[in-house]
């Protein structure tokens, strides 16, 4: 990289800019953490350093996890069930398609066209399909059912799993699989016993991206559920209407919803760029 020595003042300026940018990115989460640890009376005093400026308390968390436990755990369990199921299904069928696209040459439609076609639905505005989805789910009696959310999110996340795995399989050397085929494995056995273990990191990242995407989905969950199957995002968005400016209450709830996808995403940092751009940019 072309890197003539920068003058000191420029480097200092750049470091300051980086620090400000990082604080700016993390601040909302930090604010949520300290607000969740404040007594309601301290919330509006705008203090930022626990122990020095205010005495932290776990009261809000206690209330949240005892009095309001039913609502919170209901939402969390729906979110987990829907996100895990959707990720599992999308991963299973996406892996098959990814392997197919990486290992066979299609005659009628080109591999690239099939991949593009699977991808293209990611670019439809969700508002464009939400009404037909609502009508479809109403017909099947799936309104307010986790099944509807699983189905919708599988459809949305298939492109992620297909593209991530297609690239991962594409980078494997052919020899291992060829020798397995020569030894009499069927292509499917070759996939399961030879190729899959080798792409384990890609499998994990595809699963996590699907999980995080489903976990964070709001519009369809909002339209397709109203009480039994409302996931965490919808419950939180509803909190503000009931609770007004009870910031401490909103912040505990927000943190419970934010933690799972964030921690998972940090575990797969290396793959995140490739995953989120559907393989268009290699990270």
């Amino acid at each position, binding site marked *: *990289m*072309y890197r*003539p020595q920068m003058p000191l003042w420029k480097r200092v300026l*750049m470091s300051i*800019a*980086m620090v400000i940018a*990082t604080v700016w*990115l993390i601040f*909302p*989460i930090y*604010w949520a953490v300290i607000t969740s640890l404040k007594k309601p009376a301290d919330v509006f005093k*705008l203090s930022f350093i626990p122990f020095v400026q205010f005495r932290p308390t776990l009261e809000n968390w206690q209330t949240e996890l005892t009095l309001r436990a039913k609502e919170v755990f209901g939402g969390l369990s729906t979110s987990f069930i829907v996100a895990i199921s959707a990720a599992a299904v999308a991963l299973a069928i996406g892996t*098959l*398609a990814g392997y*197919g*696209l990486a290992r*066979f*040459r299609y005659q009628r439609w080109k591999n*690239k066209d*099939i991949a593009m076609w*699977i*991808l293209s*639905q990611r670019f*439809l*505005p969700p*508002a*464009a*399909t939400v009404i*037909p*989805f609502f*009508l479809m789910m109403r017909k099947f009696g799936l309104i307010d059912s986790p099944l509807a959310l699983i189905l919708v999110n599988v*459809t949305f996340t*298939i492109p992620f799993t297909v593209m991530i795995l297609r690239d991962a399989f594409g980078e494997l050397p*052919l020899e291992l*699989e*060829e020798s397995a*085929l020569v030894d009499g494995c069927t292509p499917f056995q070759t996939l399961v016993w030879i190729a899959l273990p080798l792409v384990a990191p890609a499998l994990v990242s595809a699963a996590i991206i699907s999980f995080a995407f489903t976990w*964070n989905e*709001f*519009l369809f969950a909002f*339209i397709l559920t109203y009480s039994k199957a409302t996931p965490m*995002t*919808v419950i939180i*968005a509803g*909190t*503000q209407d009931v609770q007004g*400016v009870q910031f401490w209450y909103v912040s505990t709830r927000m943190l419970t919803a*934010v933690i799972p*996808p*964030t921690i998972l*995403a940090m575990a797969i*940092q290396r793959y*995140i*760029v490739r995953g*989120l*751009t559907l*393989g*268009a940019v*290699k*990270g």
Partner: protein
Amino acid sequence: MRRVGSPKSRRALAPYCWVMPSVIVIVGVMGYAFAKGFSISLTKWNPFLNPTPVPVGLGNYVKLLSDPLFRHSVYVTVVFAAGSVGAEMLLGMAGALMVQKLRFLKGLVRTSMLIPMMLAPAIAGLIWKLFMDIDFGLLNYFLSLLGLPEIGWIADKTWVLPSVVLVDVWQWTPFVVLILLAGLQSLPPEPYEAAEIDGATRLQAFRYITLPLMKRVIVITLLFRTIFSLRAFDTIFLLARGGGPGQNALTLSMYLYERAYIPFHMGMAATASYIILIITLLITAVILGLTHGAGSTE
């Protein structure tokens, strides 16, 4: 079939079994929704008042396009997309160049960039709504610390759209930084070495080496952000429900939801969704045309 990757397989149909499950799900769900949506858009239909849709041909399209509020929402959507994507690309490029030069704590900065991206847009909207509260919000507190006049943020006609753009920029600039950073790190060192020998300035190196080499990545990023900002819903829904003061944050998605879905004008809602799709395709085509198709997937 015996040989992996052989150009001619003995059983031509077998490879299709691999992609079939994905194709079936996508056709079954998205294909159905897409076709159904179009047929609804040609009718006048309120499922709770008159259960059978009345065919009106292209009537809904004519009605929508002549509705001043709808045209206003097209304008709002374009301003929102142009403002947020423009700011994200500029800040993102600056950020990527700076992070690339970092010698310490690069990992920490990269990790902290995941936080906004992994926050559900609905939750990001909510948290910023609290920050933008006129009386108790942090933003006004900081403004008063700096001796600046307080702002109405999302409660103010002039500020509601910039406020929504601000939140979008907060959430998605890191995405742009990460992608551009990945692009920068894959650039070959040779052109820069040549530039150094020729005595080029850093600015010249950026203009004549980095930008051309990064073109493909930049276009892909631009496309992603444009398409996704045109369809943004969650954040705006939380920050400016009903379009905000003076309907000045009434994007097309919000129009569809508030003006068509909520009053159960299903035909109008479906029509609005098709117009959103057409606008998205048009803008995508314009971007690709301006950049000579540099963003194709391969």
